[in-house]
């Protein structure tokens, strides 16, 4: 009897580890809507923005589009932020006032607030760039299911690039993570996802 319990526990642990490392919810290239119980929980966080401490709960009542990226990101981040910029400009002014786009750096060693504040407004003046300690960022990324790691960049002068998951996390007005939109989601698709969350008036 006891043996069966041990076996059961072992099976559970193995299953847990397998799901942890394979992250099955992170559907490759498909439009992954959160469904399984391994889905990231998201939740509140506090980091540093342009004017000091910024918390997710400061934006209660707004739709937040959260992206994990870095300012020396050569292609993936500019593509995604460019599409988010298009989306922002496709919204009406009223809708735009109910939306906040923010990027948390996955390269806190190189991205200070000055860099974030130079980089993000290029895409749209309303975009917020957030930094913190590597530990703070790792903890938030884990809750949102964002993964990243340093990678050597050829023999180039930049030293390294950062491999990273490229989802945009859609957080509703109640601060709840509701959807993750894959890389290369178009401006129009972002607009549709945002409008689905905005309560009709």
């Amino acid at each position, binding site marked *: 009897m006891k043996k069966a319990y041990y076996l059961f526990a072992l099976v559970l642990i193995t299953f847990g580890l397998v799901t942890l490392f394979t*992250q099955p919810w*992170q559907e*490759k*290239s498909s439009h992954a809507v959160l469904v399984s119980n391994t889905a990231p929980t998201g939740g509140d966080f506090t980091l540093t923005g342009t004017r000091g401490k910024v918390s997710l709960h400061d934006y209660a009542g707004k739709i937040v589009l959260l992206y994990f990226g870095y*300012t*020396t990101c*050569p*292609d*993936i981040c*500019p*593509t995604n*932020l*460019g599409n988010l*910029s*298009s989306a922002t*400009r496709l919204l009406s002014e009223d809708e735009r006032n109910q939306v906040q786009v923010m990027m948390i750096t996955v390269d806190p060693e190189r991205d200070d607030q000055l*860099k974030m504040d*130079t*980089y993000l407004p*290029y*895409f749209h003046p309303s975009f917020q760039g957030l930094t913190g300690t590597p530990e703070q960022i790792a903890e938030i990324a884990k809750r949102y299911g964002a*993964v*990243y*790691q340093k*990678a050597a*960049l*050829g*023999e*180039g*002068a*930049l030293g390294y*690039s950062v*491999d*990273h*998951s*490229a989802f945009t996390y859609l957080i509703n007005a109640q601060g709840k993570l509701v959807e993750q939109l894959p*890389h*290369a989601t178009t*401006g129009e698709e972002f607009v549709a996802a945002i409008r689905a969350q905005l309560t009709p008036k």
Partner: protein
Amino acid sequence: MTLTRSLLMTALLASSLSAFAAVTEQVQVLDGYVREVPPTQQISAAFMTLHNDDMSDHKIISATSPAAKTVELHTHTLDEGMMKMRQVPDIAIPAGGDTFLKPGGLHIMLIGLTQELKKDVPISVTIKFEDDSEKTLSLPVKSVMPMQMKH
């Protein structure tokens, strides 16, 4: 008879000429551009469509540009849920086919920009093929945003 022979000779000559033609003559570059970057950004990328008119496969083995300290051939792959950018030794262009260099995929990385990328100021990029023949392109700088910013 003489006419047939001379036609044959011409055909032979033409085919041998094409066999000796440099790869750069066989590959067309379409819709090329360099991406405009946010201020202080030190890296950009060149994107384009490569069309191979030839009956044999060809490849780009390297690229250079006066606008960057280092130029590398790169690709992106989605692996372990992450977009991973890696250097590649060459970019193949299949016989009679197209290869697309586009965001999120193959691209020519311009690392350590030596000049500011400005709209309407084209950037020179030279691509080298497997036979060492080269093609110098003058690529326009384009913004990632499909619509222009309203200030």
